[in-house]
């Protein structure tokens, strides 16, 4: 737990100082997570700053970031720990003839243990931020691996016993909502839905990420993107795509957004041709392919 934070505003300013703009809700939830030592489960569409929140929390608190990137097929050996069987085999061979009882305790000791992110976070001497990214990608059965860690900040290795975190980590899980997570997992977390930012917040994010972006252009960009997001799209533009678009406009030396500019560069915002066509039709744009 980070001692210096006594109000959600402290959290917001700490995050802002490292370039992350939290709204009141994000600040409140991050504050609670720290005060109650509970994990945050951040859910929402792609590219709205879920991962960035964890990175910013680490930077703002000066903690090391330990990241577990989830994927289909992730298992215990990659998430928690694994015995180094190469090393174990070598030891067995070098001790040929010795009694099994003696060797057994030896090869199942710390020096043969390969720690993976979850165990690493628990065993770290300095406080860490543990990011469990895109947890919706693992099978629902694999979620069970996380429960002990999230509940009590402990990991049990049968041969070595239970290890408890020395310092309480700040834990952030992210999900793109491609499937429902288990009730068991959700119960253990503070839930934070991160939607697309409001026009004002997106404008502020733009200005903070791209210092040489004129305020007026940032405003126009934020408004335009927000209008585009209202369309029924296959994939709405994310914050990172808004940032890319702003960078593109700057690189092209463009000072104002108009239809011509939008049609020439809309492929930075929209990745599917159907979406580009749809936007072109709705806004009567003249796109190269449309």
């Amino acid at each position, binding site marked *: 737990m980070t001692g210096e934070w006594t109000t959600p505003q402290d959290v917001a300013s700490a995050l802002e100082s490292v370039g992350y703009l939290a709204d009141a809700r994000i600040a409140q939830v991050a504050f609670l997570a720290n005060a*109650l030592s509970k994990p945050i489960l951040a859910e929402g569409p792609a590219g709205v700053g879920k991962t960035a929140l964890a990175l910013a929390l680490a930077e703002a608190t000066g903690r090391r970031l330990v990241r577990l990137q989830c994927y289909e097929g992730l298992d215990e050996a990659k998430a928690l720990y694994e015995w180094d*069987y190469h090393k174990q085999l070598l030891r067995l061979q070098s001790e040929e003839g010795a009694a099994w009882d003696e060797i057994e305790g030896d090869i199942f000791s710390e020096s043969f243990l390969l720690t993976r992110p979850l165990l690493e976070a628990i065993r770290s001497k300095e406080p860490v931020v543990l990011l469990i990214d895109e947890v919706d990608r693992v099978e629902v059965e694999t979620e069970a691996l996380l429960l002990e860690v999230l509940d009590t900040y402990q990991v049990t290795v049968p041969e070595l016993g239970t290890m408890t975190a020395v310092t309480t980590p700040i834990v952030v899980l992210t999900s793109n909502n491609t499937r*429902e997570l288990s009730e068991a997992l*959700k119960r253990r977390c503070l839930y934070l839905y991160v939607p697309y930012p409001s026009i004002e917040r997106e404008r502020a994010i733009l200005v903070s990420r791209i210092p040489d972006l004129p305020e007026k252009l940032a405003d126009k960009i934020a*408004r335009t993107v927000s*209008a585009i997001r209202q369309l029924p799209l296959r994939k709405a533009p994310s914050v990172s795509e808004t940032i890319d678009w702003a960078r593109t406009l700057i690189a092209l030396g463009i000072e104002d957004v*108009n239809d011509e500019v939008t049609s020439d560069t809309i492929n930075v915002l929209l990745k599917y041709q159907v979406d580009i066509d749809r936007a072109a039709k709705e806004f009567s744009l003249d796109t190269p392919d449309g």
Partner: protein
Amino acid sequence: MIDSLSGFVAELREIGIPVSMVEAIDAAIAIEHTDLSKADNLRATLGATLVKNSRHYPAFDAAFDVFFGLRLASPTGTDRERDGDGGPFAAGSGGGAGSGSDEISDAILRALLAGDHDALRRLVAAAVDMYAGMQPGRPVGGRYYAYRVLRRLDSDQLMVRLLVALGAAHTESELEDRTVHASAEELVDQMRSEVEREITSRLVADRGAAQVAATRRMPLIEDTNLVHATRTEIEEVERAIAPLARKLATRLSQQRRHGEKGRLDVRRTIRRSLSHGGVLLEPQFKKPRKSKPEFVVLCDVSGSMATFARFTMQLAYAISSELSKVRVFAFIDGLDEVTEYFGPGVDFAEALMSMSSEADLVRSDGHSDYGRSFRDMWENYADAVTSKSTVIVTGDARNNYRDPGSEYLDRIAERSRALFWLNPEPRRFWDTGDSVMSRYAQACDAIDQVRTLRQLERFVERAALPAARRSRLVS
């Protein structure tokens, strides 16, 4: 606070939001770390601890406004009480003086444009005093009072004035025009919800939160009747469909034949052997790969089923983007394959349009004919169904007293791996009138009533392949 918390939790459960004991306790603890001088802090705290599904937030917010809107609320609320000028039902009779309404509207317009929330709140409170005509104990819902106020404030007129103020007359492009409209609409909505909030808090002061909440309860999106869904509901439901499709595809992906093991897993075998002093006692196998499931969807798209068909089509479309093989057939009184209309990269709404104008779904009068359609399926597309396919039929089985042709569905089922029927009608109406649901029962592995997202979810959760294809051939 603990009292109102437990009332609030009870209300959430009543709505259908699952709140566990642990979560209620977490909320109570979290409240101690919350600065209660602002309602939105409490909203964030309760939202994070009690509600773990983004779809539930609209219902949560509505209930929150009822329970905590007043208690923590507006400076106006507290002023009024302190001034002791008669509590929530003070001031005007509701008849309202004509001249005041223009002044208030002007002031509201200015407050909206300036983004001055406090001023807006004060003005709306005054407008409610003047125009709502609220009377204590009267069994009138908030909507009626809100209607009276909004009529006097004339939101259409306000919209026009906002558009002018935001420069709608000088826009240079369609896009800019849209943007201005969106901003104006957002401001009108701000005023509208402020009016609703003000009225709600007065009703709560009169009748108590629990009672007001009960009359206000909005059904969760998962309990909305898909047959009569509104546009916004449709959009919300559609967002929930992709995860369901993925789950269905996973559930129905075929496990290899029983007893067959996957490839030897060398790494795990050696690891395991070390517990036996390096002796390879227990070979470990990789999990057998699952094969891609194949789906054949038969969809009644006749008039009565139009909205519902949209969901099943979308489910089919979502399943196909889960890399499963899907073929989709639509029918009214004739059946045609419509798979190609829904290929990847195609806009769903347009696909529906071109499907209904181009595909050959009507043979005679355009009233559902299941028998004829199943015969078309059997005669023209029997090859689409193999021992690997799961067939899903969606429709109300209302056959207009025609020949059910169940022998054709039996044959289709016989060729398939499994056949499920989703019927949006309540079970008690099956087999009444021209519904011939039970005539198809022997072809089906399951017939489920699916008229809400929750029921669709339940179907997906329970859907299981039959252990073996039972013989269904009718003699």
